[in-house]
């Protein structure tokens, strides 16, 4: 394959992608006679929501209507609106159908594809009774987004290299190999200001420069796809929806830095991502885009996949490298840094999936274009996994510096059930909570750090007033206790002790000294742990203490849990006036501590026997059981 052949291939493939390269704008049948394309989201979430059976039903309905030669179904990567899945997007009309069931297939085919009128009842409505919104571009969820990393996800098949090529795939590689020296590629990366998206935000260009400057011929580059933060799934979506992007980015890194071999370290929990990446590597090899003499330039580069086996600490660079070599994933002290001495003691560079996904667009469109997006200190976009107590959940990509309020209220559609926003948790077990007072904060590396949280990998969990912040801190500490590799005592022992202190606060056995002990222990663990896992493990505690100290104090001093979560601190009583005497609570009470009030058809709870299980509260049909 030569660069000229690749261009010709791109031009051919582009014609077949005309609908998708300009959704809602291109018209007329495609060269092969296709009149309409039905993009069906085959991302992880939609598959779980029943995408396969919807796809089957569509195939059958198309065949029945005799349309299967003129209309084509394309399973794509993640479209992002996970809570609206299964999703089908009809092109060139650009109509999006949401929450589909197999039974809806006939209506789409008969009414829309044959009859020409979109099926109104299957369109998205912001709320019940509101007017439907047929075009994704008009939905606030999509309209506020700007997609660089996810620009191909949801618009193409992840299992066909043709489609990636038709979306300008491998053009950045061709440009670098024919028009740029390795130094120029690194200069472009440095000028773009791209910061590592895995958590720490280290400038990517500088890392590439360090590897390029390292002496020796044997250098490695690794893609870190061990996405371990609970609540983050952008790397999974990129690998499942656009795997060639990572192959191209790693090859660019190899050209720029002199690495001769690449590894992708993927977690075992993502079998589909592993399969699609394997296929992409194979296709790229066959197309002369990977292996020997890539695009006739003389560049040789190969990529191997290494599957993890379930250890959060393996996201840490030195632990990851140990795991790539088949060992226990325990970290090593740094320095030496991987770019000095990594795999086999040779210079090694580790980049996160989302970081790499930014590379081909930067090389192709230039750093000036990239720095025009986002903020000065954090150029570009960030993908957030929006989840928790928010109406629309899923994967969203916004320019750096977007306000948290826009993400939660406009894109996410606000908190459900009329409850109030309490906090947003970012950065997973290494991050912190942002309280409602900071809802207008700009989401970029530096602003988040200023309020005691971090960008992390981009998990963003919205919490409402029913979440107890002490319990949240305990949840994350539980995670760190489980995932501590055990090598250094501050992390191994410290996290366990902190967990014990948090538990005592939640269970009402804490003393006046507990909060102080927790704070000083947090500082010790932070300053003396060996690796990032231990150093950041106290963050959820410190950030909740900073913003929700009164909630901690209520637990310790007043022995109450304001959010009504910590059961030991709750008192259950039956409101005399509301009780109708139905006996439901008495029959369900596991400790038989609910008694009839003498001579009346009313009930009361004998506190001495109550184990605070909350069963009576949940079963009472009249809301007569009070929880305080």
């Amino acid at each position, binding site marked *: 394959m030569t660069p000229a052949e690749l261009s010709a291939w791109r031009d051919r493939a582009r014609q077949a992608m005309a609908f998708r390269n300009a959704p809602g704008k291109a018209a007329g049948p495609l060269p092969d006679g296709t009149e309409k394309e039905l993009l069906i989201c085959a991302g*992880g*979430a939609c*598959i*779980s*929501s029943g995408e396969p059976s919807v796809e089957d039903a569509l195939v059958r309905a198309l065949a029945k209507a005799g349309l299967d030669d003129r209309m084509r179904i394309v399973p794509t990567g993640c479209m992002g609106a*996970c*809570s609206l*899945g299964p999703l089908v997007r009809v092109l060139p009309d650009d109509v999006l159908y949401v929450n589909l069931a197999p039974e809806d297939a006939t209506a789409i085919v008969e009414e829309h594809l044959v009859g020409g009128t979109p099926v109104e009842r299957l369109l998205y409505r912001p709320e019940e009774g509101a007017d439907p919104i047929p075009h994704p571009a008009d939905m606030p969820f999509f309209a506020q987004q700007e997609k660089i990393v996810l620009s191909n996800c949801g618009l193409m098949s992840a299992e066909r290299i043709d489609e990636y090529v038709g979306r300008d795939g491998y053009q950045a590689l061709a440009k670098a190999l024919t028009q740029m020296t390795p130094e120029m590629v690194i200069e472009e990366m440095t000028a773009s200001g791209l910061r590592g998206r895995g958590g720490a935000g280290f400038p990517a260009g500088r890392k590439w420069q360090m590897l390029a400057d390292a002496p020796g011929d044997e250098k490695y580059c690794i893609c870190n796809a061990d*996405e*371990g*933060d*609970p*609540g*983050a*799934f952008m790397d*999974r979506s990129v690998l499942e929806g656009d795997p060639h992007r990572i192959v191209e980015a790693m090859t660019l890194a190899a050209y720029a830095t002199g690495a001769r071999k690449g590894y992708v370290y993927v977690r*075992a*929990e*993502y079998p589909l991502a592993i399969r699609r990446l394997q296929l992409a590597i194979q296709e790229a090899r066959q197309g002369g885009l990977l292996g020997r003499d890539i695009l006739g330039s003389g560049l040789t580069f190969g990529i191997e996949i*290494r*599957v*993890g*086996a*379930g*250890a*959060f600490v393996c996201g840490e660079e030195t632990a990851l490298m140990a*795991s*790539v*070599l*088949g*060992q*226990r*994933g*325990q970290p090593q002290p740094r320095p030496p840094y991987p770019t000095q001495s990594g795999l086999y003691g040779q210079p090694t560079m580790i980049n996160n999936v989302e970081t790499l996904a930014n590379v081909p667009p930067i090389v192709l469109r230039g750093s000036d274009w990239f720095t025009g997006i986002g903020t000065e200190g954090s150029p570009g976009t960030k993908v957030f*996994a*929006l*989840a*928790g*107590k928010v109406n629309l*959940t*899923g*994967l969203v990509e916004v320019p750096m510096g977007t306000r948290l309020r826009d993400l939660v209220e406009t894109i996410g559609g606000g908190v459900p059930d009329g409850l109030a926003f309490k906090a947003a*948790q970012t950065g*997973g077990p290494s991050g912190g909570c942002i309280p409602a007072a900071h809802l207008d904060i700009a989401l970029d590396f530096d602003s988040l750090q200023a309020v005691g949280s971090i960008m992390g990998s981009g*998990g963003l*969990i*919205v*919490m409402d007033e029913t*979440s107890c912040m002490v319990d949240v801190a305990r*949840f*994350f500490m539980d*995670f760190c206790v489980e*995932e501590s*590799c055990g090598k250094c005592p501050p992390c191994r022992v410290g996290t366990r002790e902190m967990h014990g202190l948090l538990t005592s606060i939640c269970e009402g056995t804490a003393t006046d000294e507990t909060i102080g002990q927790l704070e000083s222990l947090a500082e010790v663990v932070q300053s003396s742990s060996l690796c990032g896992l231990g150093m950041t493990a106290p963050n959820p505690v410190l950030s909740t203490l900073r913003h929700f100290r009164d909630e901690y104090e209520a637990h310790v001093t007043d022995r109450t849990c304001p959010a009504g979560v910590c059961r030991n601190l709750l008192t259950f009583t039956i409101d005399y006036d509301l009780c109708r005497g139905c006996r439901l609570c008495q029959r369900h009470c596991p400790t038989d501590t609910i008694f009839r009030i003498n001579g009346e058809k009313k009930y009361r709870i004998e506190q001495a026997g109550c184990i605070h299980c909350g069963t009576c509260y949940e079963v009472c049909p009249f809301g007569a059981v009070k929880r305080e």
Partner: protein
Amino acid sequence: MPHANQPTGDVSRALVDLNPPELAKFQQLEAACEYFDQSDEALIQILHRAQELFGYLRDDVIRFLADRLRMPLSRVFGVVTFYSFFSTVPKGRYIIMVCTGTACYVRGADKVLEAFQKELGIAVGQTTVDGMFSLTTARCIGACGLAPVAMIGDDVHSALTPDKVKQVLQDYR
């Protein structure tokens, strides 16, 4: 005691006594070792294959691999016990993995997990007496948009509530 880095051949001789389906599994495992050139770097990848073949990592399987990859038994055990994906005890026909990641937790994963424990009569990490179900938790399976979720075998069940648990299990019984 033979040197740990030399294949002893003991394990290979023991294989002669195996019944045909067992032998076939060991042969497939042998093939996996050869695919990776008996390289110790591939230990985790080969252990994945072994678990796929045998369901869990039995003692004799671990010994076989230590022999084939010419590494001390302690090293193989060290790796097996470090990673949560590997199991040294048999698992049920269906592995139930309740996600306890942050998004699921915020949306009530603890109550869902409780319902599974109650319905199956087992604690996390245990297998039902009939060998049908094993109950485990996961840190995050990346389906946060559908929280709370649980995986049973390869199926993901989304937006679970304690009430739905019984019904979900019914389909597998």
